[in-house]
């Protein structure tokens, strides 16, 4: 017994349910996408936060030489914000890479800024000399900034664009030079 088929289709039946479903899915999906598109006002409400896509929370901390540094003063530069401590093995391991990136990209408007967690200036200075690092480091003596940035492990690194928005974050380490440089170059390209 042969099954009758319509001349224009190889299907033995009229339009199957799943074809209708496909069209419904496409139309309703695109409609839903339009109705739920991001709105600028929502982004504005949550503008400052230590999350990718938000403006990096500002901080006012002393540097090693006692000068006060505000993070917002670095707006216009690409900032690699690295939270570390001298007792942290991976932090020590990635110091040379951070230093190399600072040296290679400083002229392009890149600042590597360390944030040390709860150690005194003498300890920090001695450690940085021992690893050959000379990039600026702020002292978060009471861990208030560490708390604001929700740093739960070291090292933690935020990559901040010229507009002050956090564009990427790396939790843990050690980061290799190539990784840091790739993220910096991505931010430099975005800012062009």
């Amino acid at each position, binding site marked *: *017994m*042969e*099954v009758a*088929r319509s001349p224009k289709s*190889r*299907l*033995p*039946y009229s339009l*199957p*349910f*799943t*074809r209708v*479903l*496909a*069209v419904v*899915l*496409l139309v309703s*999906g*695109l409609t*839903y*996408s*339009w*109705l*739920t*598109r*991001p709105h600028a006002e*929502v*982004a504005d*409400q*949550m503008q400052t*936060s*230590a*999350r*990718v*896509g*938000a403006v990096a929370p500002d901080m006012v901390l002393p540097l090693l030489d006692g000068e006060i540094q505000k993070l917002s003063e670095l707006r216009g530069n690409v900032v690699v914000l690295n939270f570390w401590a001298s007792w942290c093995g991976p932090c020590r391991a990635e110091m040379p*890479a951070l230093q*190399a990136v600072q040296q*290679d990209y400083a002229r392009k408007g890149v600042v590597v800024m360390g944030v040390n967690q709860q150690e005194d200036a003498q300890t920090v200075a001695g450690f940085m000399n021992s690893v050959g690092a000379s990039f600026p480091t702020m002292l978060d003596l009471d861990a208030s900034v560490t708390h604001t940035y*929700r740093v*739960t*492990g070291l090292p*933690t690194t935020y990559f901040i664009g010229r507009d002050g928005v956090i564009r990427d974050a*790396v*939790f*843990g*380490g*050690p*980061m*290799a*030079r*190539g*990784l840091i*440089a*790739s*993220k*910096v*170059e*991505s931010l430099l390209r975005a800012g062009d």
Partner: protein
Amino acid sequence: MQPFIRIFGLTLQAQPFVILIGYVAASWLAGKAAARRGLDEDVVSSALFVSGIAWLVGARLGYVILNLNAYLPDPLSALALNASALNTWTGLIIASAVFATSLRLKGELTVAWLDPLAPAAAVFAMGLALASYFDGSAYGLPTTAPWAANVWGVNRHPVQIYEIAGLAVLLIALVRLPATLPAGALALTFVCAYAALRLALAGLRADPMPLVAGMRVEQIAAAVVAATAAFLLGEHLTDSRGSTANLEGD
């Protein structure tokens, strides 16, 4: 957000650890699903093992090639162990090619092998969603719902948890579907349903996503993928039913 977890005194990065657990669980499930369909469990397990390694190599290779200028001054840094220097898409392309090649070398490259991967992919996707929950990515829009999760200091839709719940329902449905469905039908069902789930959940996300004409690219792509998979599924099931009818009539 909890990007680090501590197990037996060791501090580990949560995201790669959870993804690894998800992959192991998915591989195990793929083997069981293959056996249920009368396929060789060892074939799919070994293919997935090799593909996993291929994904890592391909993802790292892709990332380095796409950022070659950054790696040229220090090429050895391309070998550094860091989960942030990976390109998901190049990894997926190479892993898929290796998986297909692995099956082909064993003379097993057929559409039937896609079906055991469907429940496995659901489990793996659950692992990816959980990894996002740990590292605070793919976060949701603010909400006053009682089940909201506090992420980044704001009560938000726990989109990652929604995704895990949706995938759990999908997994149960996939496991309950009869093993006698035409080869490839289970895989298409998964693709359609998961794309629809991603489409729906993307509307509740607040993290930055690529846009076109103001709409999220992911949602547009998901709508097209879901619709295409539904269409192909319908064609596939109808053809199979028509073939069966012809056989019965002979």
